């Protein structure tokens, strides 16, 4: 029991929570933005993989870290464009198109990585983002090292969550996005082009997913290896439902989720092999399923989610 308390009281746990949460925050916000406009984007897992690879590759070839993040965002946007062509212009099944984008983006990542980086005994690394202590706040006892000594992309992710919450609920643009996702016919009647809105939302959302992936290789770790995204994209899709399609709750959901993940990692070390490690690794996936089961009925789904919009067709 005291071991549990020790873990909970360590600043290291809470610092890790924010670190683990960052890719989830970015991915969940990206998926949320797509879904608010009416498009489910199951390309997320592959887009995060590609963002992780291309961001890392850019930095490995001499670009600075922020350029790496930008490259990942642009690449994510390109895959978002592909998904939008399939689901918005052609109105194809969003499930299958998304899976297609994921399969393509992840295998393409591995292909490019293998082509550009020769096989080596130890994977090549880059110099990742260093934690920045926020002046003043980082001197606070406990809270300082726990929350205010993070790498820049983590602060950026939290900032984006706040901005997105503002844009979606307080601006005309946000209203247009929500209308495209709730009732595209009504949006059209108001002079809004739902297809253009959906394109924009899917491209921007996918860019966020790409950045979420790049955080893994440019901040959390310093190298790329296949299958490193490990289902984080799918967890983000579950978190969107858990968050009821609200950016603020998405932030909280990702943090809660990361808390359990960070906690299980430390518990695993504390228990020292008494319980098979695989059981701990299962926790994030099982938690996501539980979160879905609890929230699915209560959450308010965008009414036109997964419904293609074709002008003049009902």
């Amino acid at each position, binding site marked *: 029991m005291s071991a549990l308390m020790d873990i909970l009281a360590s600043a290291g746990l809470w610092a890790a929570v924010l670190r683990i949460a960052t890719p989830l925050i970015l991915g969940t916000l990206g998926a949320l933005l797509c879904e608010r406009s009416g498009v489910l984007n199951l390309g997320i897992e592959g887009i995060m993989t590609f963002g992780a690879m291309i961001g890392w590759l850019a930095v490995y070839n001499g670009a600075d870290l922020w350029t790496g993040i930008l490259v990942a965002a642009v690449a994510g946007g390109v895959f978002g464009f592909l998904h939008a062509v399939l689901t918005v212009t052609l109105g194809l099944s969003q499930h299958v198109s998304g899976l297609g984008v994921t399969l393509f983006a992840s295998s393409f990542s591995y292909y490019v990585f293998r082509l550009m980086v020769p096989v080596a005994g130890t994977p090549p690394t880059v110099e990742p983002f260093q934690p920045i202590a926020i002046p003043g706040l980082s001197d606070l006892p406990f809270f300082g090292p726990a929350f205010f000594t993070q790498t820049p992309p983590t602060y950026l992710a939290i900032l984006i969550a706040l901005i997105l919450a503002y844009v979606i609920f307080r601006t005309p643009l946000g209203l247009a996005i929500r209308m495209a996702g709730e009732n595209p016919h009504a949006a059209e009647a108001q002079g809004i082009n739902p297809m253009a809105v959906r394109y924009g939302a899917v491209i921007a959302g996918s860019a966020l997913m790409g950045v979420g992936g790049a955080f893994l290789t440019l901040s959390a770790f310093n190298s790329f290896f296949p299958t490193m995204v490990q289902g984080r994209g799918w967890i983000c899709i579950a978190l969107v439902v858990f968050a009821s399609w609200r950016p603020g709750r998405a932030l909280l959901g990702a943090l809660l989720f990361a808390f359990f993940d960070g906690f299980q990692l430390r518990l695993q070390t504390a228990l020292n092999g008494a319980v098979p490690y695989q*059981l701990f690794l299962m926790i994030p996936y099982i938690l996501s399923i539980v979160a879905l089961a609890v929230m699915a009925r209560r959450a308010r789904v965008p009414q036109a989610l997964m419904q293609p919009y074709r002008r003049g067709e009902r």
Partner: protein
Amino acid sequence: MRFERREHRPAALVIATPVIAVIAALAVAGVLIAFAGAPVLTAYWKILTGAFGSRLSTTETLTRAAPLMLTGLAAAIAFRARLWNIGAEGQFYFGAIAVAAASAHLFGGLPSLLQIPILFVVGAIAGMVLLLFPLWLRLRFSVDEVVTTLLLNFVAILFVSMLIDGVLKDPTAFGWPQSEAVADAARLPKLLARSRLHIGLAIAVVLALVVHFVQSRTVFGLQSRAAGLNPAGAGFAGVPLARTLVIVAMMSGGLAGLAGAIEVMGVKGYVTTDLSPGYGYSGIVVAMLANLNPLGVVLAALFTAIMFVGADGMSRSMGIPTYIADVTVALSLISMLIAVFFTQYRISR
């Protein structure tokens, strides 16, 4: 650009669709091969000879096609009823580990003629169980099964990893995490001597015929299709929706579990966590390439197996990453989606 629905779908176009889609995918993949600085046509020729150039490679391609046919059928059956089973990978591993456990601890002493059919049933049931749980979540809590089946893939593989590192670990494997082997009597007979090709291929083809018959000639086949095309309408017409979905899930999960069982009993004899090079996910592509037609699945699985086996050989001699096979297969899924769209719609002037 605007599209209008075609009044009728030309039969020739429908048949040509997968061919066009595959050619388009190969063309795009060709750009990637050229980008790697290799002659494209030579690379494709090497893929073809790598898949069929010798007796060994031909039997290897056919051996690879068998599990792809089964996971492809699993996806095709489910998708036709709009049950989005993306969990074939996990169901495959469940079937595999169930068979290894059952043969090593329960039925190992039985003769082949008895043991093999029993193990098939065990593997299929294990796959079913893993799909019935997300279906229950959908029917009871309206949880989208796409996400839950995807997440369960990770849970299933971790579960298998735990078992083969724990209670089912083979004590004679020098510490490597692998399961105890199935009994010799559980090994599938070979189709061809001196090769890895086993009767799993024949089983898969027969099952494709059975599924085709069920879907096109039985009441249940009609009901499952109606449930997918228009659930509300089907329910109104008296189709028992929940029951139909449960049976569809049992068939789909069962086939994916059977794929795992057959792979263990036919090829390796034991389970490791790299038993499947993504058979479950490739099954989705196979099903879509076949346009969800069970007989088309046989051909689509062959194409996919050719790409994977052929790319291995091509990669060794030309220095192009084997991932080009995965890229091509994924691209053919996307181009198939687009091609199918244009059999239903045309660009309006």
